């Protein structure tokens, strides 16, 4: 099995392997095989289209966690300029699972904050698999309040399995750190745009996700609990994760239908990781559009709108 492809993508992996093989043969011999390769590539594209047309929520979940999926710092590099990372919560430590700093989006000064997963084993451990501790959320709060003081819009990137469930995190008040962010974000006098780029894991995601506009990449998810967690509690078996993913309606497309998402950002064929640059450009366009809308409003109207938006969640119809 090719590790760069998920289980349901294996037919595509096999097709790609064939194309690769043919190319190698082509290099060695004088026979012109470019026609043949072209045909196979067309076939591979069609196969990919077919597989990606009807992805189940569980397959989307797997894509949202794809080991090659671009992370916050990847998008930072592609979308923004002049980024300066800022560290630490001024209270305890710097949390590498949550990054942030000042940057420019085209001309505009902005504050960027996002969860960060690691790519290599060592890096994964350092970034705690994208699961922040309280100091991560408190750093985010510090940066967001700074953004308010210097009139910078806040752009957050969400990609976490959840806040870290560890002894040290509990000792330092994980709950309080998350709760405080929710409260503070509801009244910050600057536009906030959140973009879910991978996994939107529960309170750990929402802690940087209270916003004026929510954007989601097509193959990202946002959920109150992981499908595995939900399945093990309600179905008494983690194997029912696929059923849980379906029942909770955690995909970007479903959440758009339910009215949670403002902008659904389509991903290139095969997912964001297959064409990183193209995906980044789409996010950049969406961010600029959203910022144009939000910066046109005066602050009071913006805050009133944010509050009514929050109050509308689950309100009786």
């Amino acid at each position: 099995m090719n590790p760069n492809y998920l289980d349901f993508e294996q037919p595509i992996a096999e097709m790609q392997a064939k194309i690769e093989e043919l190319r190698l043969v082509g290099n060695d011999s004088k026979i012109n095989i470019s026609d043949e390769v072209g045909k196979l590539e067309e076939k591979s594209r069609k196969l990919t289209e077919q597989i990606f047309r009807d992805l189940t929520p569980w397959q989307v979940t797997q894509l949202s966690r794809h080991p090659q999926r671009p992370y916050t710092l990847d998008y930072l590099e592609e979308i923004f300029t002049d980024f300066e990372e800022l560290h630490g919560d001024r209270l305890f430590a710097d949390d590498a699972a949550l990054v942030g700093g000042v940057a420019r989006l085209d001309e505009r000064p902005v504050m960027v904050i996002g969860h960060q997963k690691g790519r290599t084993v060592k890096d994964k451990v350092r970034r705690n698999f994208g699961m922040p501790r309280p100091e991560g959320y408190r750093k985010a709060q510090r940066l967001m309040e700074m953004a308010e003081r210097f009139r910078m819009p806040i752009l957050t990137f969400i990609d976490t399995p959840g806040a870290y469930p560890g002894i040290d995190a509990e000792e330092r008040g994980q709950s309080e750190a998350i709760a405080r962010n929710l409260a503070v974000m509801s009244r910050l006098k600057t536009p906030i745009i959140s973009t879910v780029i991978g996994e939107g894991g529960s309170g750990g995601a929402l802690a940087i996700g209270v916003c004026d506009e929510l954007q989601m990449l097509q193959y990202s998810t946002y959920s109150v609990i992981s499908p595995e967690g939900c399945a093990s509690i309600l179905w008494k078996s983690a194997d029912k994760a696929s059923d849980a993913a379906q029942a909770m309606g955690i995909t970007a497309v479903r959440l758009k239908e339910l009215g949670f998402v403002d902008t659904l950002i389509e991903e290139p064929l095969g997912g964001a990781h297959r064409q990183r640059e193209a995906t980044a450009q789409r996010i950049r366009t969406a961010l600029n559009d959203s910022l144009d809308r939000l910066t046109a409003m005066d602050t009071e109207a913006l805050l009133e709108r944010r509050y009514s938006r929050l109050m509308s969640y689950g309100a009786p119809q």
Partner: protein
Amino acid sequence: MSWLDKIVPSMGRTQRADRRNNIPDGLWHKCPKCEAVLYRPELERNSHVCPKCDHHLRLNARKRLAWFLDEDGRDEVLTDLEPVDRLKFRDSKKYKDRLAAAQKGTGENDALIAMKGTLKQLPVVTVAFEFNFMGGSMGSVVGEKFARAATIALEEQRPLICFAASGGARMQEALFSLMQMAKTSAALERLRMAGIPYISVLTDPVFGGVSASLAMLGDLNVAEPNALIGFAGPRVIEQTVREKLPEGFQRSEFLLEHGTVDMIVHRSEMRDRLHNVLSIMTHQPMTALDDEPVEPVETDRADGDVSTPS
């Protein structure tokens, strides 16, 4: 080993005892901590605190507010909210059926009740979680009711007091449930900006989405003794860190030590002490001590002292 132990395996006996524990109207009740068999009327008189070991038993929402507020002028508010199954959620059971069962079992519409009333004559708004209603989980009705109660507190300038007891978010309402964390926190932030006190009383247990929102945002966070309070449940943490959890982990006393709660208050003192802090915070004139002899002030008494008054 007696002949009885041989015939009845000890496991089976415990289970039977547990089952008896759950019978709501039995005349006898076993303390879950010291296992003393308690006469129910006496337990009621003692606000459901075990007279033998001082364990604070869980108190349902309605009893809680009836015990906490002055008897005169209590008024339940926001009673018209009914849960809706927006996602047609179904696991091994339908959410609809779970709701119906919970409503029948508790007599409540959902897991939160709200009352206006007075605490030793100080006007307040109170809310309490009903843990027996799907583990006190926060769905849309709980969030909506909480936010509206906070709005009443804001409009009428009354302090808000919440008694939390909850396993966290309600999975059957998925993202609707998650967003209640943001909704309730935003409503509380308005209260905070307006300078209206909010006291969050943490009772056994408080976890997950309720803990990581409204329950930790009190101007004062107050815990009942020995309550289990945290973000992640102990089992999840144990599975993640693969270590044995320290003694007393996530108990009220642990939270006090780590700076998460302001004080631990014994149930028998809750009314007096909350009234005291609220009257100070809201600049009430000092109340005359009604006929009580003036006693010397205990100076060695820490905030976290939970000793039972004799």
